């Protein structure tokens, strides 16, 4: 194929296209951030999942300036209280020692064991200029001794490594000049993002947002910035003044002399500065259905252009007096005066030796090269002596703890160097060593409790079969429900396998009720048969209140006038939250019982609905635009107007007469109907298409019900009641409320999904077709939707009006059972929340839990999914005999009904991946809550109605707050990779994992730990990070047994 000259890209256009492509690639390591209205748990290092876990953690830690593992002293605490397996730890140490050459007179195992068990802080310091010779001299002479001055050949690479590379110019300038340009840029960019991405929180919004982020910002940028951008526009596109964000990026990077080979890394570093905002912008740019994104587009290229514009402007303004302001300047400074660059970095990065800090500052201010040269020699010498002494002290302390003082004091230079290398490498690998040992203990605990014994045969069907979400919080309620009566429970992803897009009653937008990995094709409408309440007055009052609060001046008056009312509200919420909220709920209009429009509409039905809607609009329009009273707007008139608006007929003179306006007025009105009210042919066609998405065909319904029941192994022996329990949470004053809701329902309550499946499964036509496919559901079986409130442990039954009268007699027993389970669950769960001093009786605990859910000062309404550790895919009998303490995702699965392993692959594809996201979100939020988590809720402020910031200006806080994963500053969540257990024949399970590419990658790269329990051979197979499987008989639980036999994958 040839490209004609007219269609080929100009060099500039090619460059700009390249910028866009590079920005896209550079943004990959930054995870998506979804609006918090429907909080999505995600892996903060999702963009690095193609790498092995350890490598990704190391890379992520550098990129986000974060910690990838817990501090050593926390692991030591775990070791002391038995949460880390000491034998596994010893094995890890031995493995490390075995891989290294022996060091003369050094008992490396003793050193490493002492380091792990007794040393609180890292022993080997990084980034030092003291080398092993300095240390050796200090060891044997008691001091550093005189050494040759630090050579430029040593200094220059060190400086280049720390100041150049992919590092943005302003960061290096900050490090060398003591400026705070990076912080200034961040603040400015946050302000721009807050203004542009606002979703209705601000009263005064940024103008021209429809033009996109960069253009809208450019129009309101300050005068200096305008001048800068105009100059770039002139340089890039001449007199026409067109300026795209790609042009800006290309131009600025060239001006800053950043080599093109570093652009991707440079972009990534820039983007990662505000990874919360960047993650939100990345997600938004790809969310085609998202209303705000459609209206006000913005992407990472815009963000980069804005950041770089601020960078260039501030570098020009803040850096004066011949200081470096481009990468070229930085390189020249490092090459020509490395000692000055070194001293500058020492001073401005807060690393200067305290004794010399004032001298260094004075010398740099004087800019006397001779003085600086002499000071550098003295400083470097002092630094080396200081570092060597500090390092030596640490090594001596470690030697003492290891019982190795005598050999250490006589170590030769080479042995000392080898020891330091070994300790450095070990400390680098240490996080993984602790983690594996911790996971080993967790696996031992789990495997010891699992039972492969066949359950005793049932004499009769259970009273109730209840399917709960796989969520870890369901484990407790399931256990207690099973303990209070004849209940059989199942675990299934909370959307019950039916991806639904819901249009809720009173809302015009769709909510996706399924994991974010899926995009629902079917829409379900929530409808009410109740008459419309007089909402107008209430709505108007609420609207007026908001306007008063949000306006610039009115709050002063509002506080004086009606502030007292809020005071009553505050006292009520604080002093007696339960009673007050109960009373207040009565004041609000309850949402009446609703129905779900679930069946596919026929063409005629869809047409009829569309007509009805258009008729209603026309009636309203005639009343409003022409002022005709309702009684004069008859059906014939409406029909004639509709036909005219759709272009099917002309307006008849008698119709115009009825309207009471001249012909021109009638024509204008028809135009208004077509334009303002969108009664036109094109829009009607679109609406017909949308209506076509509503509901499910019978085939689809049969497929979904069959799949849901088969996937949990419920294909026969149906009870009278099959409870489908979705879950949700209730809390007050909590922006993270949706993080406590159902992840499988896209961060929403799971009730609608339960109602959808129940409605489908109760339909006779569906049951008939299911019976043809081998699933016989008795006539007296009733699928009943319910909601499990995870904050209060209550289970409420829904759609009771549809319940057959024959079942009413059993309802009381069912409610009693559910109530008892809820109380027992609250009793078990409450002590960990520490809201009451002692363990309470079930009734009191249940009351306390309800109060907790209504307390607006409560920062921790529940622990949510904290402490999650396991994902178990198998029959309930496997785990029934053990209490899993709310730590396991339990997905019911019976391999016997899945010979083609389709169901297993489905479980791996959806629920397991969501579970892994949740697990990793908790892992990283626990190991570094400030960087990967969102810090304390106490300082949070809602930003733009889609996220939270710390204080009034910060990066969007992603991850989980400290109140969710930490307790008294220490991890409550025990950060481990998800230990996944599949109960199935080994080959079947292995083939299923191999068939699901995303899961295979996660397993092979060590993001999840996989165990297969083969019930037919009663063996346990553990996938090792080296790619092999280790197998042992079930029932042996020690580490030595676990490593007994290896089998190649």
């Amino acid at each position, binding site marked *: 194929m040839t490209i004609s000259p007219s269609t080929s890209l100009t060099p500039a256009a090619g460059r700009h296209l390249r910028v866009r492509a590079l920005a896209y690639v550079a943004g990959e390591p930054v995870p998506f951030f979804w609006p918090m209205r429907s909080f999505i748990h995600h892996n903060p290092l999702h963009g690095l999942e193609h790498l092995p876990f350890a490598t990704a953690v190391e890379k992520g830690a550098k990129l986000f300036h974060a910690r990838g593992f817990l501090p050593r002293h926390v692991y030591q605490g775990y070791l002391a209280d038995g949460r880390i397996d000491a034998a596994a730890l010893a094995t890890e140490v031995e493995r490390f020692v075995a891989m290294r050459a022996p060091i003369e007179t050094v008992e490396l195992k003793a050193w490493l064991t002492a380091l792990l068990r007794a040393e609180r*802080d890292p022993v080997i310091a990084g980034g030092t200029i003291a080398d092993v010779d300095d240390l050796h001299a200090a060891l044997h002479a008691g001091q550093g001794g005189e050494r040759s001055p630090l050579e430029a050949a040593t200094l220059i690479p060190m400086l280049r490594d720390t100041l150049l590379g992919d590092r943005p110019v302003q960061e290096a300038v900050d490090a060398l000049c003591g400026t705070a340009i990076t912080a200034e840029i961040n603040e400015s960019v946050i302000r721009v993002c807050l203004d542009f991405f606002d979703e209705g929180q601000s009263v005064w919004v940024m103008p021209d947002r429809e033009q996109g982020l960069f253009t809208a910002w450019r129009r309101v940028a300050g005068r200096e910035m305008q001048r800068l951008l105009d100059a770039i526009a002139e340089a890039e596109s001449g007199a026409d003044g067109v300026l795209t964000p790609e042009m800006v990026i290309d131009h600025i990077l060239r001006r800053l002399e950043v080599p093109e080979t570093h652009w991707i890394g440079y972009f990534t570093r820039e983007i990662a500065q505000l990874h919360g905002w960047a993650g939100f912008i990345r997600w938004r740019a790809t969310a085609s259905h998202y209303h705000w994104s459609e209206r006000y587009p913005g992407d990472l290229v815009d963000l980069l252009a804005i950041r770089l514009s601020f960078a260039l402007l501030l570098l020009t303004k803040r850096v004066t007096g011949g200081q470096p302001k481009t990468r070229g300047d930085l390189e020249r400074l490092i090459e020509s005066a490395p000692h000055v660059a070194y001293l500058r970095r020492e001073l401005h990065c807060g690393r200067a030796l*305290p004794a010399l*800090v004032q001298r260094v500052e004075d010398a740099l201010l004087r800019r006397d090269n001779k003085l600086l040269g002499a000071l550098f020699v003295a400083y470097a010498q002092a630094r080396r002596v200081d570092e060597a002494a500090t390092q030596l002290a640490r090594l001596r302390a470690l030697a003492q703890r290891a019982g190795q003082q005598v050999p250490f004091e006589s170590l030769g230079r080479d042995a000392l160097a080898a020891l330091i290398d070994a300790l450095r490498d070990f400390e680098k690998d240490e996080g993984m060593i602790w983690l594996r040992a911790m996971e080993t203990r967790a696996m031992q605990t789990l495997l010891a409790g699992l039972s492969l014994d066949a359950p005793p045969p049932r004499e009769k069907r259970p009273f109730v079969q209840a399917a709960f979400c796989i969520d870890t919080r369901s484990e407790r309620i399931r256990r207690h429900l099973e303990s209070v009566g004849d209940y059989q429970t199942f675990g299934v992803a909370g959307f019950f396998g039916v991806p639904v897009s819901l249009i809720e009653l009173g809302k015009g937008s769709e909510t996706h009720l399924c994991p974010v990995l899926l995009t629902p094709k079917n829409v379900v409408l929530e409808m009410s048969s109740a008459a419309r309440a007089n909402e107008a007055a209430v709505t108007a009052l609420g609207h007026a209140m908001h306007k008063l609060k949000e306006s610039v001046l009115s709050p002063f008056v509002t506080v004086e006038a009606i502030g007292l009312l809020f005071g009553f509200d505050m006292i009520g919420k604080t002093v007696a939250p339960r009673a007050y909220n109960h009373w207040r709920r009565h004041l609000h209009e309850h949402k009446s019982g609703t129905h779900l429009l679930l069946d596919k509409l026929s063409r005629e039905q869809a047409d009829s609905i569309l007509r009805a809607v258009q008729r209603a609009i026309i009636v309203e329009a005639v009343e409003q635009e022409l002022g005709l009273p309702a009684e004069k707007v008859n059906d014939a008139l409406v029909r004639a107007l509709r036909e005219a608006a759709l272009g099917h007929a002309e307006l008849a003179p008698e119709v115009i007469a009825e309207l009471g306006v001249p012909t021109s007025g009638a024509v204008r009105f028809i135009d208004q109907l077509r334009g303002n009210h969108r009664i036109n042919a094109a829009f009607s066609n679109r609406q017909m298409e949308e209506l076509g998405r509503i509901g499910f065909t019978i085939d689809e319904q049969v497929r979904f019900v069959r799949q849901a029941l088969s996937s949990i192994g419920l294909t026969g022996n149906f009870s009278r009641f099959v409870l489908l329990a979705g879950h949700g949470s209730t809390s007050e004053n909590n922006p993270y409320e949706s993080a406590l809701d159902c992840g499988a329902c896209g961060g929403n309550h799971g009730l609608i999904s339960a109602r959808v499946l129940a409605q489908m499964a109760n339909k006779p036509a569906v049951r008939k077709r299911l019976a043809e496919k081998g699933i016989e559901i008795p006539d007296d079986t009733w699928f009943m939707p319910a909601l499990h409130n995870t904050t209060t442990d209550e289970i409420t039954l829904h759609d009771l009006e549809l319940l057959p009268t024959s079942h009413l007699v059993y309802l009381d027993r069912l409610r009693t059972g559910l109530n008892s389970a809820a109380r027992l669950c609250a009793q078990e769960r409450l002590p960990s929340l520490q809201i009451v001093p002692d363990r309470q009786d079930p009734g009191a605990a249940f009351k306390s839990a309800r109060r907790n859910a209504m307390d607006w000062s409560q920062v921790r309404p529940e622990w949510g999914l904290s402490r999650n550790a396991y994902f178990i895919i198998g029959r309930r009998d496997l785990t029934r005999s053990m209490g899993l303490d709310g730590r396991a995702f339990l997905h019911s699965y019976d391999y016997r009904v899945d010979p083609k392993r389709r169901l297993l692959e489905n479980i791996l594809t959806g629920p397991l991946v969501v579970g892994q996201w949740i697990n990793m979100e908790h892992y990283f939020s626990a190991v570094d809550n400030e960087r990967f988590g969102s810090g304390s809720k106490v300082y949070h402020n809602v930003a733009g109605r889609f996220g939270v910031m710390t204080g009034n200006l910060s990066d969007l806080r992603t991850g989980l707050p400290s109140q969710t994963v930490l307790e008294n500053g220490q991890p409550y969540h025990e950060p481990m990779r998800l230990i996944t257990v599949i109960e199935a024949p080994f080959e079947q399970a292995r083939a299923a994992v191999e068939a699901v590419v995303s899961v295979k990658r996660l397993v092979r790269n060590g993001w999840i730990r996989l165990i297969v329990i083969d019930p037919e051979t009663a063996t346990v197979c553990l996938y090792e990070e080296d790619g092999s499987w280790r197998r042992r008989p079930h029932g042996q639980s020690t580490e030595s047994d676990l490593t007994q036999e290896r089998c190649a994958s």
Partner: protein
Amino acid sequence: MSISLDLLAALFLPLFPLSMVFTRVFDRLRHPLARAALLLAWPQLGVLLIAQTALPPPDAFIVWALATAAFYAYRAIALRDVGLWIAFIAVSAWSLLWLGAGDVLTMHVQALAFSVPLLLLNLLSGDLERRFGAAHTRLKLGLAAVAPRYAAVFVVAMLAAVASPVFPNFFSLLATITHRVAEHGAGLSVFMVALVWVLWTWSGARLIQGIVVGEGDARNVADLSTPMVWAYAGGFLFLAAAGLALAGVLL
């Protein structure tokens, strides 16, 4: 003779550039107790010398003193070392004594009132230097996170040093202003004294920001012991009581 004595007094109630002698000596003396002795004795010597001259001093000295006070207060804003900052604030404060020069006993009391609040900060600064190597804002001390007791005591000591109300130097400053107003009416000199006070506060706030706020690097440093906290608290209470008593004497 009087001018010579005035010039000699300008060394001890330091006026720029003679003030450089004091700052240099103070900088050289590293021991906190030696510095404390210097802070107490230096202005008293100045007052003794000025008492030998014909009071009030010439107007030129008043202008010179005001310029010195403002200059050192302004320069203190850029300082990052707490020890040096104390020396600069001491110079700035003592030079203001020239404005109220009349009654020698009052001058002795005022000089003491300026010096004593700086003593506590000086002792604390010495302690910080011993533990952290230096009390300098270029080091990432982050006292609030690393050693909260140190941080609290440092903040109060700094408030005392910048002549916050109830501390003696506040009333001494107020006495200087009221004296000037009584003698000459509210003029430029009063405005200058007020400006000097604002500059002290500004520079003090910068030091608090640099030393107390932020993340600290030195994680293993022991915090101030409880007895020492009580000792400092006693010192602050004494200063407050002395300040209130002084208010009755000077105003």
